[in-house]
């Protein structure tokens, strides 16, 4: 019996180790390669002990200054999309939580249906329209697109959170003379903050890494970092792997730290509503 338990524990440990290795190896390889001298990156046999260098980070700064502009653009778009999504999804989630009507029920189905559409189906018809509006290559366009893409999921998520807030609080606020705007801003939003944070994690990860919309709708001014990383891969003069790994590491690091820090809220978001009723 004890031998069986030891076997199970060892098996579980081995499984976790394999999963960890599978997940962490690409990240470790990328981060290590960004610090290796260029000729050591693909050396056969591979080198694990080396004198770390920042030469690729320096080269990135000198040769791809637009990567850092791209990061700035990514940040603007990510923050904008997250704030917009959180606001809209909270208001919509409130409406779905507190009101009932056939129109609302039908629109809830529509929210799910929208998520089923492949993004490319929406993207290409929008291209001439965005161009005609003069909104091509603007942060505004990406913010609105990213927010639009996540409002449906966000609304369902926020509805689950707001459902847990007692309706009596609404009624008390309304009796005290608060309008719906004040009610949402002062009562609902603070109480639904964990939901908004969980939603923000999804939006931030998506917006920070998104490629397709950025590729179609930007060219220079609002160009985000993933587009520039993809250009590094397509160089005619050969891929400078060290610089590419340095860029990928910089691109990954903030989101990795953020997701680790917000892990608790992410789990809360994923399990929201699971125990309802």
């Amino acid at each position, binding site marked *: 019996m004890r031998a069986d338990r030891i076997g199970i524990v060892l098996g579980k440990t081995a499984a976790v180790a394999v999963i960890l290795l599978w997940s962490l190896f690409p990240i470790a390889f990328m981060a290590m390669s960004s610090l290796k*001298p*260029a*000729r050591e990156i*693909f*050396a*056969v*046999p591979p080198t694990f002990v080396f004198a770390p260098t920042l*030469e690729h980070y320096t080269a990135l700064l000198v040769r791809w200054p637009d990567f850092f502009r791209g990061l700035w653009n990514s940040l603007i778009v990510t923050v904008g999309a997250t704030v917009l999504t959180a606001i809209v999804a909270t208001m919509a989630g409130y409406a779905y939580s507190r009101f009932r009507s056939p129109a609302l029920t039908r629109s809830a189905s529509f929210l799910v249906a929208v998520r089923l559409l492949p993004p490319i189906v929406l993207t290409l018809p929008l*291209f*001439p329209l965005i*161009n*005609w*509006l*003069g*909104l*091509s*290559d*603007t942060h*505004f*366009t990406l913010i609105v697109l990213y927010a639009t893409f996540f409002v449906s999921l966000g609304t369902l998520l926020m509805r689950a959170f707001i459902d847990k807030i007692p309706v009596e609080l609404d009624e008390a606020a309304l009796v005290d*003379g*608060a*309008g*719906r*705007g*004040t009610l949402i*801003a002062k009562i609902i939003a603070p109480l639904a903050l964990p939901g908004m944070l969980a939603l923000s994690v999804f939006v931030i990860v998506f917006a920070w890494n998104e490629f397709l919309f950025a*590729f179609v709708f930007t*060219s*220079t*001014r609002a*160009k985000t970092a993933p*587009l520039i990383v*993809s*250009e590094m*891969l*397509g*160089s*005619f*003069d*050969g*891929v*400078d*792997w060290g610089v590419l790994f340095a860029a990928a590491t910089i691109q990954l690091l903030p989101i990795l730290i953020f997701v680790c820090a917000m892990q608790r809220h992410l789990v809360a978001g994923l399990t929201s509503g699971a125990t309802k009723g």
Partner: protein
Amino acid sequence: MTTFKMNRRTALGMGVGAAALATGIGRARAQGKTLNVLAHRVHQASLTQGPAGDLTKAWRDANATEVNWATFDSNPLQDRLFREASLSSTDFGVGFLVNSRATRDAAKLMAPLDDFQRANPIEDFADIAPGLVAAMRFDGKLVSVPFRHATIGLFYNEALLEERGIKAPPQTLEELVDQAKRLTFTSAAGTPVTGMVLASDLSVFPVTFARAFGGDFISGDLKLVPDRGALEKGLATMQDLFKAGALPRTFATTTNDDQVTWIQQGRAAFTVLPFARFAQLNNPQQSKFPGKIKAIEFPISEALRGKVPFASVVEFWAMSILGNARDKDLAWNFIRTMSSKAVTTGAARNGNGPVRVSTYQDPGFAADQPLAAVESKALAGARVPLPAFPEAARAQTIFLEEVQLAVLGRKNPSEAVGAIIERVKPLLPA
């Protein structure tokens, strides 16, 4: 207590206001005197960075115009170019077009350049490689001016050849095969060396082997497999190399970037790449064999040596004016200046493949470029790997499928060539 009242009218007003503001900002930005150029980063770099400096500065100063480079990877660049050109109007003036995507339909999206050339001609236009210019004429109209070429050659690691006692690089294809087999060994440094490394996802390589026997995949006049025997011999040679282990076991997944890293690391003795890769392959920061990677023209087979010139594979980029561009005169002015002799030579010093014959004759340029003579010779007879036609991408995919089956020994070369002919024929224009 302040009450914030968000009614439908307020929400609608805010939405319209935000859209109007964003529209205004977008349009205001587009109104400055700027020439927007759709390009690959390599085009921007060769015109703005390197030993010759920023070659656009004089033009920018003279025209009080800024150049705004929108750069993309190759295929996304072409997709964006065609998408922009299909709108009612675009902010982009100049776009770079690659030969393989320059079909008749694509040409219709670009502005014809003959009137511009007549009114305000490019300096010594005849000096620009005529074969490249001809590929950019559709129904008699010039739609793009060649800017950059990449002609392929055979690269070899001189140190590895010396280690195996090989005194000189191959002069014929048969010698190349023999040397590649001899160079499949474990080097003194303990690195397993493969005789030759080639990517499996590019048609350049099988086409090069076919041309070494005087054949082709699709000729310039759209003849499919003009010499069946030559293509079969080319595939049989690649199959022979694979069977002997002189092509990597991972051939089916080998990419263009692998070719570079394998040569730099001494894991392969030969590869086929554009001459322009010379500097990168010998870069001391990346290569374990700086100064030891040399290049020659790809060798032709013994039977054809001295009888017919070898047609190296060339790919090239050209500058077009988008048909819906707002300021076509400004765009032409830019193309005209960037095509001048001085800028072409300067861009070549910055790493561009010059499309002017005279650039290679420039003593200053030739002195700095060890491969100038061999590249110039290869360029003289070079042809694109396959002509552009609407179904070219599908034809290429089929070709590569069959080539891989042949090289890996899953089909004999004759069967593979038969399948290529049968499957590609319906895709060719009537």
